[in-house]
């Protein structure tokens, strides 16, 4: 606990180290693992955003997919229609989604609990479908978002997937580092305060409305980046890339992580990527009828989800956290 106040530096070193380790790993694994790793990084970021919004500021959003869509479209439009550099496109994703979150945040900051969830859910179904209404948004084939090939100095053998992984992991690392700093700063503390007792927090000089909007905007900005990364990984943006199930998926990841802290986000994201693989493998090894093979993966994923909620409702991340505290005592 004493270390709290030099923890910022520690965190920085930890993130740099993690980055190095990832770099080394990415060299040693195949294309598929790199591609999956890129997804893990992207999901980690998206989950971190939801943890900030729900775990800290207490606003349960069922519409993270919509925020990601805003980022995805911004990035693709910037890169393809304006032909700006992909890095600029990613930054645009953050800015536009942040602005969008700010506006939505103003509208919904007064709402609580299921009213907020309902509104974000409606947003999640309404927003992507709007894209079909405007021809310039590319309808279902969508707008290409191509970050290009890796610079030639990395060598001929440098695969597209490794490049994806590098971009995705770097963006996620930086963003999650920023988010982690925020959560460890007075902002994290203030968000928890308004979440737990809005009146007491207000009497202490915190403006709950403003803090909620801030949380919404930040969560939205980085969700936008996650959306842009997603769009990069699937090469183009279109409404159906942001179905309601995406929002629920992120929520699931957050629960598996434990909504209280960021510690387990990579684990949560890993679960999102790995579980379907496992389910797939189980189905393949079982064989069975067409009906079984088509329904079993869904069944297994849901079952695991339920077991996770039942047996580690606060996420394995929380368990680790908890154990540490206890042993310190």
């Amino acid at each position, binding site marked *: 606990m004493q270390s709290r106040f030099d923890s910022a530096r520690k965190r920085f070193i930890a993130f740099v180290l993690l980055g190095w380790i990832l770099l080394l790993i990415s060299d040693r694994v195949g294309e598929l693992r790199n591609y999956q790793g890129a997804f893990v990084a992207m999901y980690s970021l998206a989950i971190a955003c939801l943890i900030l919004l729900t775990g800290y500021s207490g606003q349960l959003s069922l519409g993270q997919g919509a925020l990601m869509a805003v980022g995805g479209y911004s990035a693709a439009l910037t890169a393809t229609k304006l032909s700006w550099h992909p890095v600029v496109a990613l930054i645009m994703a953050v800015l536009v989604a942040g602005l969008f979150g700010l506006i939505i945040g103003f509208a919904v900051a007064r709402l609580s609990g299921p009213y907020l969830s309902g509104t974000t859910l409606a947003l999640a179904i309404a927003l992507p479908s709007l894209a079909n209404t405007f021809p310039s948004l590319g309808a279902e*084939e969508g707008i290409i978002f191509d970050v290009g090939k890796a610079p030639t100095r990395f060598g001929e053998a440098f695969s597209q997937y490794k490049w994806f992984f590098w971009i995705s992991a770097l963006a996620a690392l930086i963003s999650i580092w920023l988010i982690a700093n925020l959560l460890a700063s007075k902002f994290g503390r203030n968000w928890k305060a308004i979440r737990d007792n809005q009146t007491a927090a207000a009497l202490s000089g915190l403006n709950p409305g403003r803090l909620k909007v801030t949380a919404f905007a930040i969560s939205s900005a980085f969700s936008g980046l996650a959306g842009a990364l997603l769009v990069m990984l699937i090469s183009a943006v279109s409404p159906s890339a942001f179905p309601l*199930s995406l929002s629920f998926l992120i929520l699931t990841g957050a629960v598996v992580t434990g909504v209280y802290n960021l510690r387990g986000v990579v684990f949560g994201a890993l679960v999102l990527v790995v579980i379907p693989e496992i389910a797939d493998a189980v189905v393949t090894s079982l064989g069975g009828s067409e009906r079984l093979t088509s329904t079993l*993966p869904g069944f297994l994923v849901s079952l695991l989800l339920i077991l996770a909620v039942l047996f580690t409702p606060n996420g394995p991340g929380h368990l680790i956290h908890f154990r540490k505290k206890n042993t310190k005592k």
Partner: protein
Amino acid sequence: QAADPGVTATTIKLGISSPTTGSAGRVYGKLPGAMKAYFDYINANGGVNGRKITLVHRDDKYLPTLAATQTTNLILKDQVFALVGALGTATHSKAYTAAALAAKNVPDLFVNTGYSGFANKTKYPTTFTILPSYAMEAKVMAKYIKDNLAGQPFALFAQADEFGKDGIAGFTAAKTPPANTQLYPTSSVTSDVAKTYLTAISATPLKLVILFGTTDVTATVLKAAEDLNLVGKLTFMAGSVGGDANTLLALGVKPTTIDGLVAASFFPDAKDTTDAYVSQFMEINTKYNPGVTFDNVVLQGMNSAMLTVQALRAAGKDLTRAGLISAIESKGATFASAGLVPLNFSSTSRIGYNGYWFGKLNAKGELKPATGTTPVVYTTDSGAGDVVKSDYKRLPLPAKGIPTNS
């Protein structure tokens, strides 16, 4: 040079990413099963050049993200030799780039989409689509309306995506834009929405309604028409994707309602047991795909599988990805297929079928030629080209449905 992945002396591994669950799974879920059944049939009869075909299927639930990851899995993990029968515009357009099919020169055979964008060879250098484009369909429809329905103005009720937009482009190219266009988002058409739409149309002088969407929407609209007593008052025309009689009847549309419904198709009627291809496929289906009823989707799957077998044969014993692609380019137009319209593969054309015939459904759900006794086939392109009547005669069914081409 190392051999391409997925081929050994005795096996060929193919892959398909398509929906088998979710709402799209309901419509297209039978596709991979039908293809597998046909491949099993071929394998039981010696395979292709001594190689047995396995088909790895991955469910993408019709979601772009999943399609991208599943297709990548097919390439990187399952190490398939080629893709065959992928389904969907939004999904496959992403999957194609994400799985780096172009860079790896992975043949992308017989994609089930009518979106003309896939014909762009620079963007999708290894792709061959199978369905005629939606634009072609619209153009042929326009021609049919001109010839048989006195060129009357019509309303278009179309899916608000590439599907519908390609259609509008086709009608516009044919210089007969719809008098009234209504686009709708997928999954939103309930009976009340359909009623609102039809009520609005019935207040206009328009008498002809073209439905450019999936069969469940066609069913919803037709049932709404029944409820509003508009069945006789309006004439409905359905596109090839949305006119499957079995599905319409299963969804509770009255036989009397579909009796006379004009539908476009490029296949023989899946109920027509007198058709050599259909009856052969039915036989295979009974044996290798037990418990699955034969319908248009099964027909389509088997047909694609049969084309695949011919493509593999045409590529020769030394099977390579490049060889497979050039084999289709050079010989694809001569493959035997169940389609009643010609195949159009060439070094410049990536769209398989390029025409339609028009039929009318009867109360039993059989599609009979709209005029005369034999289907009248029109062909065209996706652009500004003319719609021409074709006297194409398809090749006879190879003996027992087992191709022997080379």
